[in-house]
């Protein structure tokens, strides 16, 4: 090995990298929140007895799950700016890449969240719904007060794991030259001719965040299992 490492460009770049990390986290958070809300609606539509709703949800989920995320993002970076500038009369120079990325990730992740949530709803015993309607609850009340709370408690570990995957996937906004954490690291490395160090640094940061988060999820899962067993 004759490569000579020089890590000196990292300390000075930390504020810039932190700005990038904030963008990564912003996209992740938006996509998780929207993804869970819209994913829950999709899951309920898919399980609904109203056929057109069920078909729409199935089509939506299957379509998004069949296309690579890269392609989905390319679509959203193409369509969203046109729609937004057209609808809100923005000047053509307005930077809507962050918004496009957020919308793209949110709609894409909803498909994956909806599958997790559907499995969660289906794992609640049928007797629970029957008991709720025997108590005089409407379908909506039974869902909101009986089924969903139980389903979500079982799903939390899976939803969090999906959020970790999503956080990793946000690095793909690099394609739009948006400076998320990875994009920022690449830019610094490219500028200083220290791509090797910056890429290794970025990899290490992602690893520590995701590894720590997944260990926490695992611990929570254990606690949940122990709770259910008693």
């Amino acid at each position, binding site marked *: *090995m004759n490569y000579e490492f020089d890590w000196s460009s990292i300390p000075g770049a930390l504020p810039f990298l932190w700005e990038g990390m904030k963008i990564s986290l912003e996209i992740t958070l938006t996509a998780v929140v929207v993804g869970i809300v819209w994913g829950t609606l999709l899951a309920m539509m898919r399980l609904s007895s109203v056929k057109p709703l069920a078909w729409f949800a199935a089509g939506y989920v299957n379509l998004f799950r*069949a296309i690579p995320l890269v*392609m989905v993002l390319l679509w959203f970076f193409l369509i969203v700016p046109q729609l937004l500038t057209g609808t809100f009369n923005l000047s053509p120079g307005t930077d809507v890449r962050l918004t496009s990325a957020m919308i793209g990730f949110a709609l894409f992740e909803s498909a994956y969240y909806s599958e997790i949530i559907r499995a969660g709803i289906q794992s609640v015993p049928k007797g629970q719904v029957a008991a709720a309607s025997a108590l005089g609850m409407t379908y909506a009340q039974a869902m909101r007060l009986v089924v969903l709370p139980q389903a979500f408690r079982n799903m939390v570990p899976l939803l969090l794991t999906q959020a970790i995957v999503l956080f990793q996937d946000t690095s793909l906004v690099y394609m739009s030259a948006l400076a998320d954490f*990875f994009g920022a690291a690449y830019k610094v490395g490219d500028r200083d001719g220290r791509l*090797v160090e910056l*890429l290794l640094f970025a990899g290490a940061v992602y690893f520590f965040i995701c590894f720590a988060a997944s260990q926490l999820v695992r611990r929570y899962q254990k606690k949940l299992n122990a709770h259910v067993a008693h």
Partner: protein
Amino acid sequence: MSYQWNWSIFSSPVPTGDTTYMGWLLEGLQITLALSLSAWVIALLLGSLMGVLRTVPHRGLSLLATSYVEVFRNIPLLVQLFIWYFVLPELLPFGLGDAFKQQLDPLTQQFVAAMVCLAFFTSARVCEQVRSGILALPPGQRNAGLALGLTLPQTYRHVLVPMAFRLIVPPLTSEFLNIFKNSAVCSTIGLLELAAQGRQLVDYTAQPYESFIAVTLFYLVINVVVMGLMRLVEGRTRVPGYIGSQ
């Protein structure tokens, strides 16, 4: 919006004149298929090995396999790809890195880096499936193998691994689908696979909607074909008496 649709771009010749724009897309499709399939073969082999190691009664080996999985699962695919492509050639000893950079043509360099990256990334996921398959088998299977006088490696080879694989066909199917989708990430290092050809078409023809619709349809077709094939495999390998078998 006043968008001018023009579907005839696919049959018009590219600037160099040796093929049509559809020809470019088909070249991209070929690379996507070759890349995904070759990476899948490596991922299956490597993932099976690591999955077995995660379940063997040996501290060191299972720790090694566990760390392997954690490393490849907790770093984004894009970052892994850039590390394979930009970082590793700089760090390889004995001039191997220089050989990689100077003696291989750029396309081969991109393809090799992308293949190795996808293979290792996917192998960590295959490893987890193989492990869960082996752990799902009743302990009696291992004990029966050992009681028959098979050594532990023989028990794995003839009893546990074949059974585990038959159980995990459905989750492996989704990993197999994922590898085609993940291969689109490799467009970021300049590899002209399907997604990259789509972007190139946008640059050359200024017809983004037609180009992206065509590329999206190709991915949908890949998806449908792979699902159909895996359903056949699933039907053939189903273990009687387990959930999901008839």
